[in-house]
């Protein structure tokens, strides 16, 4: 994290306000930055991230789009190729699927496929998340699909500070960056640096909580859960858990993970999405190779039950990762769980 100038200080705000501040600052700083997406203007954003921006910057730079994700994501790609700095808002990650071709087959390919002759400095921002009984088509977190694509950068801020810092870094980046926001975190508050030059470099994980007994590797909302669980385990079981918040999925900061695991010798990886072929699968593979001699227990993973998310509240709760399940996995990995010898 870059240093904060003392005179500018910080302010307590929630995640969505931090994102809004990042957008406002970058739009003030750079004429080329413009926002487009469904309901970003008059409606002020489906989740109110862009509230007030239409009034400040006008309809030319805060552009309402029809429901045409493939069209306007692609329009973002084209505009970026000519040096504009489009920030494209997708209402939720689920709807990015209809624009997947523009993201994966087009935006991600430009730099390499054209031999570095042209770049695509665009940002796509969109929240993932589940838990409001919105059912299978509206509750997905397939962050790993995007992170598995060379040519893209994928960041997943888990708190207001990183929301501001990573979005600003994404806007200033020369490559296409997917900023995966998170619905349950939108209302979370935190101290956010007011320095307009504050950015969070892409590609650096953070040790969100220091500990010595076990490492929990997480990103996005799973980090919020992991921090709660770490506190609980400290109180109830005298366990000192370290939480590594990935912040950036691609590029991935393997070093911070392996340093932590080398210290704690045990690790649980958690994600909100499906674990099979997911982010935790990649992390576990990296740890398996880099930390082979450090591990005192197999790498454990926690994710969403591998079903399309059902509607009924009881089923939804049963399918989603939760703090109890994560705590149980941590204790089991420490040999302290039920069934431990």
């Amino acid at each position, binding site marked *: 994290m870059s240093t904060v100038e003392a005179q500018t200080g910080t302010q307590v705000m929630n995640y969505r306000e931090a994102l809004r501040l990042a957008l406002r600052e970058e739009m003030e700083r750079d004429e080329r930055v413009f926002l487009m997406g469904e309901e970003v203007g008059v409606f002020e954003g489906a989740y109110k991230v862009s509230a007030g921006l239409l009034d400040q910057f006008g309809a030319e730079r805060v552009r309402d789009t029809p*429901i045409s994700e493939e069209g306007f994501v692609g329009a973002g790609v084209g505009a970026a190729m000519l040096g504009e700095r489009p920030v494209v808002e997708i209402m939720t990650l689920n709807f990015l699927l209809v624009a997947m071709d523009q993201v994966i087959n087009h935006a991600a390919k430009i730099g390499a496929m054209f031999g570095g002759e042209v770049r695509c400095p665009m940002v796509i921002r969109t929240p993932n998340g589940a838990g409001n009984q919105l059912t*299978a088509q509206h509750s997905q977190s397939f962050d790993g699909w995007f992170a598995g694509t060379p040519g893209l950068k994928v960041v997943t801020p888990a708190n207001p500070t990183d929301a501001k810092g990573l979005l600003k870094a994404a806007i200033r980046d020369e490559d296409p960056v997917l900023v995966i926001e998170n619905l349950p975190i939108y209302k979370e508050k935190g101290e956010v640096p007011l320095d307009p030059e504050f950015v969070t470099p892409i590609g650096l994980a953070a040790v969100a909580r220091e500990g010595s007994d076990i490492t929990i590797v997480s990103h996005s909302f799973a980090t919020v859960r992991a921090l709660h669980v770490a506190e609980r385990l400290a109180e109830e079981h005298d366990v000192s858990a370290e939480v590594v918040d990935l912040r950036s999925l691609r590029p991935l900061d393997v070093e911070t993970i392996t340093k932590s695991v080398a210290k704690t010798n045990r690790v649980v990886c958690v994600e909100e999405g499906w674990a099979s072929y997911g982010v935790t699968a990649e992390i576990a593979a990296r740890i398996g190779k880099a930390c082979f001699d450090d591990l005192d227990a197999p790498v454990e993973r926690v994710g969403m039950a591998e079903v399309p998310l059902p*509607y009924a509240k009881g089923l939804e709760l049963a399918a989603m990762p939760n703090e109890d399940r994560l705590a149980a996995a941590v204790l089991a990995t420490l040999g302290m769980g039920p069934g431990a010898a």
Partner: protein
Amino acid sequence: MHALAEEDLLITGYRSHGFALARGVPPEAVMAELFGKVDGCAHGRGGSMHVLDPSRGYYGGWGIVAGQLPIATGLALALRRQGKDQAVLCELGDGAVNMGAWHESLNLAGLWNLPVVFLVVNNRYGMGTAVERASAEPDLYKRAAAYRIHGERVDGDDLDTMIEAADRLLTIARTEHRPAVLEAITYRYRGHSVADAGLAYRTKDEIAEHQKADPITRERAKLRDAGLTDDQLDAIDAHADERVAAAVQAALDSPEPSVDRLAYGMHALGSAEQFARMRPGSPFGEEALTFDAGLGA
């Protein structure tokens, strides 16, 4: 809905409750689905946006804007392959016509002479975006011409007009295997969803103006003109209220789906054995699941 023949098929977006009821799905099954109960029409798995009843030809409420359109062409394709003279009614919102799936589906339907009627429910807004702010050609029915499909616009709040047009176009679909676009003009009084008060992008006056043309009020007036008394009409309303109350009670009485049936319906019978080999060392998730269909799984 009245114009649909019994064997015709229906597919819609996420505003699925009314279509289900009009198609004859018991209110108890719709309400139980909203409550997430086992007696719901999707056994509590689909909820508000995904009501369905294949036994009545209703192939679902779908949640991704325009996602149901290509599927509607597929239903129609299957009917043609099976040599059946049935039609498909596919509902979509005014917001869906700007998705690629709309254009691709209309082209397929036109090219292959598929028996599908695309019913565009033009309620003037997609969330907070008025049709004129989203569509370069706001006369949505005209877009059918690009695919040499018949398109027309009707007052969707006039019951007789609506029935006449739907009946005519569905009949053509059934007998001549020709698709059509039927744009029904209506209005959304409330916000888009529970999270939208619905006043940031339009005025109260505008809403009140449209409420004057409310189809239920209009129908009531017509029935009164036809000789029904206010008492008789009130009795119809009271009956509807009773049906709703009974449906709520049935939904409350229906059991919650059991957690050990989390994976119910996901794969066809016989899959449990396939997945068994995936379990050793698996992350928490599929270990606890039984993948075969069947409520007794």
